[in-house]
């Protein structure tokens, strides 16, 4: 498996040098970043060229990187001040400067779309990530002309994240209600939503009102620096990783 994976990685590097940027994967997957401008040309080449023949688009996934790597509960400074008890709305730990810099480099924009491709001929998968240009609205070129399957997946990413796919012929909402306002999977959209519905006896119809539930966190988000997952301590990726099981 991994030999075929590496030969595909070499072929991709030779053909798309400077266009596709490989990202490290802890579980032996082929994962690349590319610019939004290169997306369509790369997609056509990946589908049509013999060496790749990624005939199937498995999935398009919108991602909102707002708040990536931020926790709600500090865990490392327990001995100095004790643990915090509850989660204040909107509170999150601050990152170190070097950490933020690394993140900014890795994630140049807030929204991205992740494409999963499958090649039946080579029995391999490839993941492409393209960051959307701009934030209001974030824009990406559409790949519906390359894979018909992208049609609904892009509609979904538009509906839930507000990513506009240029060149998509029919970019309507798909999963949310008729007349819905907002993009519910964005990280700044509350889990409980913004409106609730009930039947109004006097008006004799269903009315929309601002939501009455207060957002609350049941389990705080915690990031622990766990040595067991350090790459150096992990066994070969994919074969089961010996360190974790020893508990």
């Amino acid at each position, binding site marked *: 498996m991994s030999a075929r994976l590496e030969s595909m990685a070499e072929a991709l590097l030779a053909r798309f040098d400077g266009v596709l940027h490989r990202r490290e994967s802890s579980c032996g997957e082929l994962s690349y970043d590319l610019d939004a401008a290169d997306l369509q040309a790369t997609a056509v080449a990946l589908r049509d060229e013999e060496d790749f023949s990624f005939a199937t688009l498995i999935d398009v*996934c919108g991602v909102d990187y707002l708040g990536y*790597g931020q926790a709600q509960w500090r865990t490392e400074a327990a001995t100095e001040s004790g643990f915090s008890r509850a989660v204040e709305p909107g509170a999150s730990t601050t990152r170190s400067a070097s950490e933020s810099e690394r993140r900014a480099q890795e994630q140049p924009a807030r929204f991205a779309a992740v494409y999963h491709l499958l090649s039946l001929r080579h029995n391999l998968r490839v993941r492409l990530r393209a960051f959307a240009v701009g934030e209001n609205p974030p824009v990406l070129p559409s790949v519906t002309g390359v894979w*018909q399957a992208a049609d609904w997946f892009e509609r979904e990413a538009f509906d839930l994240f507000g990513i506009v796919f240029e060149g998509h012929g029919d970019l309507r909402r798909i999963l949310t209600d008729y007349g819905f306002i907002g993009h519910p999977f964005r990280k700044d959209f509350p889990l409980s939503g913004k409106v609730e519905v009930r039947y109004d006896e006097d008006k004799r119809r269903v009315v929309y009102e601002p939501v009455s539930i207060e957002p609350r966190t049941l389990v705080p988000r*915690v990031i622990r620096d766990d040595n067991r*997952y350090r790459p150096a301590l992990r066994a070969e990726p994919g074969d089961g*990783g010996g360190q*974790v099981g020893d508990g």
Partner: protein
Amino acid sequence: MAEFQSYTMNFGPQHPAAHGVLRLVLEMDGEVVTRADPHIGLLHRATEKLAESKPYNQSIGYMDRLDYVSMMANEHGYVLAIEKLLGIEPPPRALYIRVMFDEITRILNHLLWLGCHGLDVGAMTIFLYCFRERENLMDCYEAVSGTRMHATYYRPGGVYRDLPEQMPRHLAQPDAKRVSARDKAMDEGRDGSLLDFIEHFTRRFPGYVDEYETLLTENRIWKQRTVGISVVSPERALNLGFTGPMLRGSGVEWDLRKKQPYAAYADMDFDIPVGVNGDCYDRYLVRVEELRQSNRIIRQCVDWLRANPGPVMVDDFKLAPPKREEMKEKMESLIHHFKLFTEGYCVPEGEAYAAVEHPKGEFGVYLVSDGANKPFRVKIRAPGFAHMAAMDEMVRGHMLADVVATIGTMDVVFGEIDR
């Protein structure tokens, strides 16, 4: 003579043949469909967003509720993605249990599909036959997890517990004198363990499949309604993102269980049926043959599980709870138990995509973790979503009645399409 003009027709969402909550807006030219616009999302529950707000293990139950007729197959995709990120491998016995229950799930799913597809195009009896066998398999679910449908049985690192030694019975006192023969028949095969019961089922099941085939395969009405309907060429099927029986019905030999084996599928001996013409009838034949192949796989798992006792969960208290007894006696176990069920475990930063051959196609879970105890992003790749998207292409030019046959052949369940 007045000329017919094209008109728009609404189909569903409260139509029995809409398989739940599909709303179709059909543009008709007489009785011929010129355009179909499916409106989905009436069952949208934001499963992915809910999963982002909870520790990893607490979302397994949501997976059952995606495709609510193949529950454990959904769980499998999710736990596989977590295991991939954690870099752990469950013990072999857990893998075989998973394969066995994946195939039980496949039979459950295909039986429901066969019954409903038959009912949609006018065959009543097949529905009753299929539900008779589903009942037995639901009992297996119940025996192993305590619930008939939403099992939450697979966990990252293995399965929740080992197979029970005693298969539950319907009768509390099977030897009592006033038990009727009919009641006794309900307890047939339940004298021994769960494995005995499953083996008993696998012996009976091929005969049942013959019964279904007697009803449909050469049935004139069935063939008139399915042969040549909604033909998809292999090239189009790939471009449309088809997977599973929808792709195999078009003649593409592609099955993740064979091509990218996970769990214990590499050790299993089974065949992949493929269709020739890519119409509804071929997809029917493919799924019926899959019933037989699943039965074969279950049989192999039963034999292996009989011969190989062992642990069913990784030995790591960060991921699996300690024994109840230990928890009462040892401080460390108590802490582990408390932390696991409140905070959960942190998954190393990274991303993973894990796919399983779900009864409906490729069910994939794409996980993005930033190192926290909750996933940063979960994306569920539901096979039915891609199939539903092809609705327009598949029914264009067909009659209105064929729309129902097409919905049936897609095997749609809105729990997974709307998520």
